[in-house]
Structure formats: structure tokens, C-alpha cells
């Protein structure tokens, strides 16, 4: 079974870049362009790992993490924050909301792929 990744980012460029590297590495790639769509997609796609940006319209990355990690249907899949931000307070917020990790953009293809492979435990 292929590993499903859901990437939530409002930048088309970043979504495209992620698509290239992750599809190239054998992941099944899904994307959403803001937090609200991301949460919707999550229930539809049932991804094995989520990558989310922080600064997005409609619902930001914190909102995504909080939504996915709360309520009766809360998920345990890894949620990785991929952002240009690196402030300690922001990281603390993401951590409190239930983020699994924090990667600062720009990402390195190979490293991102290896992180995702390890996180999902699938050697795709």
C-alpha cells in the first residue's frame, strides 16, 4: 500500500514542489490550499502523514493541528509543520496543539522524503 501524504499550503509553488518530490519518491500525494480545505481533505483522503504550512488564509496551520488533534475523531498520524517561520513561540504553539515536527522552508527533497518515510514506517 502506498503511503498517503496530505500537504496543506496556500502557495501553489510549494504545493507543486512537494508534489514533484513526494510523487517522485513514491508517495500518494494530496494537497489543499488552506486550512479549511485541508481539514476537509483529511477526512476524505485519510492520509498517513500531514504536512502543513502555518500562514494560510481561512484557517491557519495551528487551526489545522488543533482541529485534527481534537474531538472524538482526533488523529494520531504525524503532523509536520513546514514553514519559513522559526520563532520559538510559534513552535511552542504548534507543539501545544499537537504537531509532530517542524521543518523550516525551504526543504531539502531527500531529507524531507527520508523524514516522511521514517515517520510513516513505510519504506515506499
Amino acid at each position, binding site marked *: 500500500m502506498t503511503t498517503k501524504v496530505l500537504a496543506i499550503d496556500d502557495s501553489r509553488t510549494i504545493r507543486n514542489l512537494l508534489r*514533484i518530490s513526494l510523487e517522485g519518491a513514491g508517495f500518494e500525494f494530496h494537497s489543499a490550499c488552506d486550512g479549511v480545505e485541508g481539514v476537509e481533505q483529511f477526512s476524505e483522503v485519510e492520509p498517513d502523514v500531514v504536512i502543513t504550512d502555518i*500562514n494560510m488564509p481561512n484557517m491557519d496551520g495551528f487551526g489545522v493541528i488543533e482541529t485534527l488533534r481534537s474531538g472524538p475523531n482526533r488523529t*494520531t498520524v504525524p503532523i509536520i509543520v513546514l514553514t519559513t517561520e522559526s520563532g520559538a513561540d510559534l513552535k511552542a504553539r504548534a507543539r501545544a496543539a499537537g504537531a*509532530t515536527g*517542524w521543518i*523550516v*522552508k525551504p526543504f531539502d527533497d531527500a531529507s524531507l522524503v527520508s523524514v516522511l518515510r521514517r515517520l510513516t514506517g513505510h519504506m515506499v
Partner: protein
Amino acid sequence: MSRNSIRDTFFEECEELLEALVEGLSSMEQDPDDMDVVNAVFRAVHSIKGGAGAFALDRLVSFAHTFETVMDKVRGQELKVNAELMHLFHRSGDQLADLVEAARDEREPNAESEAAILKELDSYLGEADKDDSFSFDAVTLEFDAAPVEVEAPEEAEAEAEAEAEDGALRRFDIRFKPGPALYANGHEPLLLFDALAELGDLRVAADLSDLPEFDAFDPNGAVISWTLQLETTEPETVLHEIFEFVESLCELDIRENTGATTPALMDAAAELPGLSPPPAPPDADSPIAATDPPDARGDAQRGEARGPRPTLRVDLERVDRLINTVGELIINQAMISQRIEELELPAVAHLTNEFEAYKLLARDIQEGVMAIRAQPVKPLFQRMSRIVREAAEATGKKARLVTVGDSTEVDKTVIERLADPLTHMVRNAVDHGLEKADARAASGKESVGTIRLSASHRSGSVFIEIGDDGAGLNRARILEKAIEKGLVLPEAELSETEIDNLLFLPGFSTASEVSNLSGRGVGMDVVKNAVAALGGRVSIASTPGAGTTFTIVLPLTLAVMDGFVISVADQTMVIPIASIIETIRPSQRDLHAVGTKGVVILVRGAYVPVVDVAFNLGLSPARKEAGDGVLLLVSTESQGLTALRVEAIHDQRQVVIKSLESNYAAIPGVSAATILGDGKIALILDPEEVVKLQPAAPFFPAITPPKLELRHA
């Protein structure tokens, strides 16, 4: 999709983001407290930075970062927006646009203005913000070292320098007992161990003592704890960074072991490779597996349309190819139509009905295809706000731009080719149109001048107006200047409109000395020609003390037009219907000879010069009698009402415009060519030019163009 095409999408996206930025900044000006707008502006800058980082566009990244940091202070309400800051934001937006453009074209941006703006932006930042300078290289390196919890590079580096200068090997003992929440947040102890192992020599021991009997096993519990020993040259903070995201979700104890003894535990317990990963159970109150669909929520939201309407990006070349093919289709349809007529088939009524339906469909397709090329003038107008800003700055005036109807759609080519003339006119409006603030105050006006840009569709044409609320044209000065330059004879008596139109004469400039702003060797004549090349016209309306408005009238599309198929000297030609006011079949008594060659016609009490099209084009007229043929009444800029004489009007039809310049060469009096139903090529006449070709002296001095009549020989 290749990386190169992603680079292209990035720049496309940048354009959209820059548009959103400009729009957001002007909304901010109106309501600086609207946090949604501030957030949108912040996000636009932020997204440009994020994308730029992916392509290692360092200058763009660092400028965007500084811009964003100041914007973030506004967002955090640490910084209050005032006119000065707003102005800086606008300039920063402009600079960002320049940097994007430079990056796209792979050339060096203007370092001077960049440095100046950066300096000003920096002045809003405290020392702490400046330390947080942004560098992507370091992040990437850091990323390789510690895969999951990547730490902000600057902190890690600073601390690493301070603490681990000696590079000595240290030994840490780590006790790590995850709580259930650690698994619930998607963490995996093995990954943490991997990260630790990259720092040095790691030994791991699992403590399975809490593991219950098989029957009592709780899949949601977190029962395994670990003891680890790490030998590394890294300082303790680096270890904490690895645990950064789990520290609150587990019991963690890291201490440096300065003693020489190794805890016995290490050797006794199982090592990492033999240990299967512990179950990562969902939380106790959530028995459903995490990947089960939370369906209720999903279904409720899925049906709703949300966000912007979906769009499709298409290569412009494909659209143009399609437009061209549709053009051929229209021509082909005209040919078939003509063939059917020629066949003179008996009882063709049903065939012609079907054919009419086909014609309508073809027209629908054509309109649909044309609509693809139509774009709102908004981006063009938005660019003008920058021009106004720069022009105001350069001239020391105060100006703001008001745009109206910026959703009006115009053919893409028109928008592109309008950019230069519009820029020039907007600059002129600020430079020559508006008064200085004190002069405005003296005449009781608001000190900030208004430049008004408006676009609208009216009767099949696009109207674009550039207005200012300045002093209006100084007609006395214009006339004086024209006389001085020998464009007009001193004794000439010109109407106000004629004086205004002097501005369009080549080589005319009212500014006594060429200002470095408007006067770049480009006059209004260039503007006029550019607009004329698009099939449009410019006119001026000016009221002393209240301002001047330039109006550009353009055709909706450049690809097709409705025309009369006419005969000129036995040749079939086409003349645009839009230019024809009425057609007249002249009776001999209305025609009057003037001089030896001139003829005028009396049209409802006014004498209108008659221009023989064949004669002006240098063809020998087929018939010599003045009363023969048909007169087409047109309104020309240079000569007012004029009657064009042609031999006959055959048909009225839509023709596809084919450029003559690109296929043959420019012919005076002819704007383009088309292919008719019979497959023959017909020239499309430009009435304005045809009239100008007139070799003989014009008929009535009072309505002749100053350009022709009043210029020195």
C-alpha cells in the same frame, strides 16, 4: 511537471501575490485596523519569501523577510500604521515587485533603492528583530543533521559555538518515558533515537518492566520506557532540541555523566535493532483507529462551493492558435455560404435554415474564444498607483489614484500595449496636470490631488479615462508654445478643442524644460499613435481650474470586426462599420464643386468635404462622375466630418483581421487585410489615414487640421 515549469508557476504566483499585495495595501490605507487585510498583506509577502527560498533567490528572500517582519509588527499591533509607514509599505511593495522581476529575468536588481528601503524598514525593527536575520542555507544544513525536529539555525549555532568550542566528547545519560499523548501526537520514539544516533555513539536500553501480562495489555497505554547513553561532542542543548516536540509529552531526564562508570543497565537490556517499535495506540477515549473517516463532518462540508471559482491555466499560444482557427472557421463558413448561393439550388430553405444555425454557433464559439483573451484592467490600473506615487515623489506633489471599473475586461494584447501610453499619461497627469500643494490650497482645493482612472464598456467599445483635478490645460501657453515651435501660424485662430489637440502634435512639450519625469523624449503624439495602432482614439476634455480628462476609446477585440464590403476602383475592400456614421447616395444637386478638384456635399445644412477613396489610394477611379457611387460619412480627428466616396457597398459582414505588416508590408491608408467568402484577400481601410492621404489642399480652412494647414512649409 519539471522544476523549470515550477519556477514559471512561482513567478506567475508571484504576480498574483503582488497584485493581492497592492490591493491589500490600498485597503489598508482606508482601514489600517482591518486585521484581515493586514493578514492578507503579510501572507502575500510571506508566500513570496517561501517560494523564493525554494529557488535560492536570496536577495528576494531577505528583502521579503525584512518587509514581512515589519508587517508582522503591525499584525501584532506593536506598530501603528501612519501615513509615513504606509508610504514605506507601498515602496516596499514596489521594490519587492522589482526584485521578483529581476529574479525572473535573471538580472541584477536596483541595489540602491533596495538598500534605501531596507534601511527604512530596519529603522522600524528593534535590535532583537535584526538578530533574527533570515538565512536559508543554514536551515538546510541543520535539516540534514536532525531530520525531524529541526531547530531554528541561529539559536542552535550560537549556542553550539558558546558551549562546544572545545569539541570534547561528552557522555549523556537519558531517561525517557513517553506518556500516551506522545503517541497520540504522531510521535515515534524510534525516530528520536535515530536523531540522537546521528549526534554520536548511542546505546539504547528498553525498560519493559511495566509491561503487563498479555491479558491485561492496554493497547492505549504507554508502557515502555527507555534508558539511553549518548557519547557526543554536541552540547546538551542540542539533545533538548531533539526532544523539543515531545518534552511536554513524556518524562525526560537528560544529564551529563562526568563519572567514568557506565550504568550496568545499558549492557543488560535489549538494543535498538532487536526491539520492535511499540504500538502507537490512539488515545484512550478514541477507540476508533485514527485513519477511519470522520465522515459526518466531511459530508456536511463537501457539497458547498467555497473559495474562488476554479480556473484553468492555459498557454497563451494555444489560445491564440484557437482564435486563429476560429477565424478560419468564420471565413470558411462565409465561403460555404457564398457557394450555396452560387449553386442556386431549388428549395434550399431548410438548408439555409440549418446554415443560419451553423452561423450562430460559429459566432458563439468565436465570442467564447474571444472571452478567453479578455482580462480585467485591474492589474494594469494597479500598476498605475505606483506610477502616481513615484511621479508625486519626483515632483514634490501630493497625489492619490482613484480607479473606477477595474473589473472591465479588455483583450489581453490591448492591455499589454496600453501599459506604456497609460503610464505616460498618468505621469503627465501628475507632472503637468496637478498643481503643487500650496497652489492647490490657494485655490481652495484639497492639498492631495486626485488622478482618476476609469474603464467601462460603452456601445461595443472600451472607454478608458485618465483624469486629474488639477488646473486644467493652460491653452494660452499651449498656443504660445505651438507658435514658438512653428507648429501653428501666429495669426491662426484655433478653437479650444483645436488648441487641446496641439498636444498630440509630434515634438510638442509644454514643460519649458524637459522634466526627467514626463519628458523622456516621448510626447503625446507617441501615445496617440500607440492607441491608434490598437484601433483606438484619444481625446481631451479640459476645464480651467477643474482639471483635464483624456479619453481613450478602443475596440473590444483586435481579431474581428464588422465591416462593409465595398468596391473601390473595381477592387473589393472592407471598411470598419464602427467608423461609419451614415451612408449617403448623393444626388447631383447636393454636390458642389470647390476649386478645381474639390467637391463638398450638403448634409443637413452643413458642407462636408468629399474624399474619393480610389484617388487618395492612388488608384484610377472606375467612374468619373461625381454623382456616382456611394458616400460613407465618417468622423475623422484630423478633418472632422468627411464623406468617403466608394463605388458600391456589397455586403455587411464580420471579417477576421489579418495583419498586413506581418504578412506583407504596411500600405498607407490600409490598416489590415481579411479573407472574404470567395477566398480572395480584401484590404481593410483606415478612414482616418485615407483622409490624410489626400494630396490636394483641404477644403475648409476652419475645419482643417492645424497639423496640415498651419505648419510652416
